[in-house]
């Protein structure tokens, strides 16, 4: 187990490096293929009436004139050893892990990301709790009462949940609950948990439910399918033959068996969410990692794109590892190797 984890962690680091190289390359290679010169690239980061001289200065400042390898090397060195940046008026330290300075906001990327992470984590954790409870409960009841009115209604709603985009449900719920009824906070409200947990929850309740609705829908369907499968397993018959009360049969034997694939999917979903719930954050104007990512991509801000990609990749890789470990815990038949 120990060596397995170590091996996986080494693999994860390697994976992250590959991701960084690919991201870096895409950023440079795609425009290059379209014929961009370093000057052209720099042109994105100057005012609209910049002279050729200004563009050249900017290309120099952003390091576009160096070979790609050198630029990448500089970036990766910053990640491991930190870097220094010219603010014009002086030199600024960017301690490791330094993911560079934004081309546009001129802010170092890492503190920005760390500043936004709590928002994303708050969103992801709250929503996850809601959707796990809601989705699994609905799925179980649906499976047990298969074909009933509840089942059909729940699966209908679930289908809607999966197919309705969050920017639609989100904006609509804001209009109804925040601006119409005035019972929830308007878009963009966020209070750190550490500052005021009650306000934190009050502000997050609408994003949570909206996001959870989306996921709960698919988790309900997943749970339902899993339960239908496990409840017809032989071991369920055995459990009943032992004289176990039905509730115990359902939860301890049925749900336990149905949960394994859900754990896997949950791990990956949650890992991805930590890398930014792009649509939810944008819809509710929450300044999380996801909105940061959208902004970075829209503005072609390489250091920001790199930072956010690495953070997301990190969460996904870690989530994967945890899922695999967890899998071995939930299913004793799985061997880690």
């Amino acid at each position, binding site marked *: 187990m120990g060596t397995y984890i170590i091996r996986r962690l080494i693999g994860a680091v390697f994976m992250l490096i590959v991701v960084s190289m690919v991201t870096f390359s895409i950023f440079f290679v795609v425009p290059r293929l379209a014929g961009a010169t370093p000057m052209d690239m720099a042109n994105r980061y100057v005012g609209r009436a910049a002279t050729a001289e200004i563009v050249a200065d900017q290309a120099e400042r952003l390091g576009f004139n160096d070979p790609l390898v050198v630029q990448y090397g500089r970036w990766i060195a910053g990640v491991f050893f930190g870097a220094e940046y010219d603010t014009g008026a002086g030199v600024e330290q960017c301690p490791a892990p330094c993911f560079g300075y934004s081309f546009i906001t001129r802010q170092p990327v890492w503190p920005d990301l760390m500043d936004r992470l709590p928002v994303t984590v708050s969103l992801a954790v709250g929503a996850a709790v809601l959707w796990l409870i809601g989705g699994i409960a609905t799925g179980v009841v649906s499976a047990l009462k298969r074909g009933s009115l509840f089942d059909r209604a729940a699966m209908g709603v679930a289908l809607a949940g999966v197919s309705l985009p969050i920017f639609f449900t989100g904006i609509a719920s804001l209009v109804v609950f925040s601006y119409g009824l005035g019972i929830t906070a308007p878009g963009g409200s966020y209070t750190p948990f550490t500052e005021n947990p009650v306000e934190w929850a009050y502000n997050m309740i609408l994003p949570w439910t909206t996001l959870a609705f989306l996921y709960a829908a698919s988790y309900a369907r997943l749970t339902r399918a899993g339960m239908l499968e496990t409840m017809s397993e*032989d071991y369920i018959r*055995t459990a009943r033959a*032992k*004289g*176990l009360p039905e509730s115990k049969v359902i939860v301890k034997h049925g749900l336990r068996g149905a949960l*394994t694939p859900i754990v896997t999917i949950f791990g990956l979903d949650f890992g991805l969410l930590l890398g930014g719930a792009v649509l939810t954050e944008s819809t509710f104007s929450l300044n999380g990692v996801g909105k940061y990512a959208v902004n970075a991509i829209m503005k072609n801000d390489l250091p920001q794109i790199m930072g956010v990609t690495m953070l997301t990749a990190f969460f996904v890789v870690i989530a994967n590892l945890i899922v695999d470990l967890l899998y071995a815990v939930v299913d004793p*038949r799985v061997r880690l190797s």
Partner: protein
Amino acid sequence: MTEKTSEQAAPTGGGQGGPPTSFLEVRDLRIHFPTDDGLVKSVDGLSFKLERGKTLGIVGESGSGKSVTSLGILGLHKGGRARISGEIWLDGEELVSASIEQVRRLRGKKMAMIFQDPLSAMHPYYTVGDQIIEAYRVHHDVSKQVARKHAIEMLARVGIPQPDRRVDSYPHEFSGGMRQRAMIAMALCCDPELLIADEPTTALDVTVQAQILDLMRDLQRDFNAALIIITHDLGVVAELADDILVMYAGKAVEYGPAEDIFERPEHPYTWGLLGSMPRLDREPTERLMPIKGTPPSLINVPPGCAFHPRCGYTDRTGGRCNTEVPELVPTAPGHLVRCHLGVPERRAIWENEIRRNLEST
């Protein structure tokens, strides 16, 4: 239960309609499943009796309703879609009309079951010990430690080496035979008075089969339980069973003492089963005599005798085979047969055609 008189059950004799005289009495049991394709009559008027310490073998091809019968006795079809009628008397208690909760309390304690495939019948995510402990603690209000000790004892009892260590193993870490032993330990852990083994050895290889059968025989003796062994392999019940019930299409076609069934079978279907039985005294390479054709649909049971499409003697009954349902009637004390053939005729067939054939080949 209403005091309904069942024509099929009548010949089994003994207190029919009145209070039961045996430890287990099944009377005119019917278990039907409504499905989209039609009504599946999995068990259709089945009656039998069993005493403590005795073994009943139920044999029949796949789909004849053996498992549905056993699950029906355990009450596992209750609350579902199944339509159940008839009576199941266990130690003076009627189970068909009993509440779900009442039957649940008996299940695992007074009556227990051993399933065919121990790998799929055990939960893959819990240790063998946990699953036995759970079975014990449902019916006994004891601490985990006590239950665990009991589980280890039970494992030792069924012949699992180093039971104190293997108690923490998962089912997949056991061999097939060991798993079935564990399954038996689990079934026996609450000292059941009725034990139903539904094809306990089908999933095992031949040498292990024998060991498990031996084990069951020993345990039955020690526990003095009533044992029902379900199988489609007559060889399995040949040594264990006191009585044998041959099922076909949800009905008993022949029912009697094991000796009668093996030595003096009177139903063409039983003859077929005997012909398809691998026997130790025969060369293993020789071909068996399987019954031609396939078991009937339980939705559209053939009219008359359900076996008639596959029976080779329909021409000897004057056309009754495919019009009139034969009744289960005694042919000798305790030996019942459901066939239109005249008693002398079928005895003659057995003696002259079948038996000789079986022995010569």
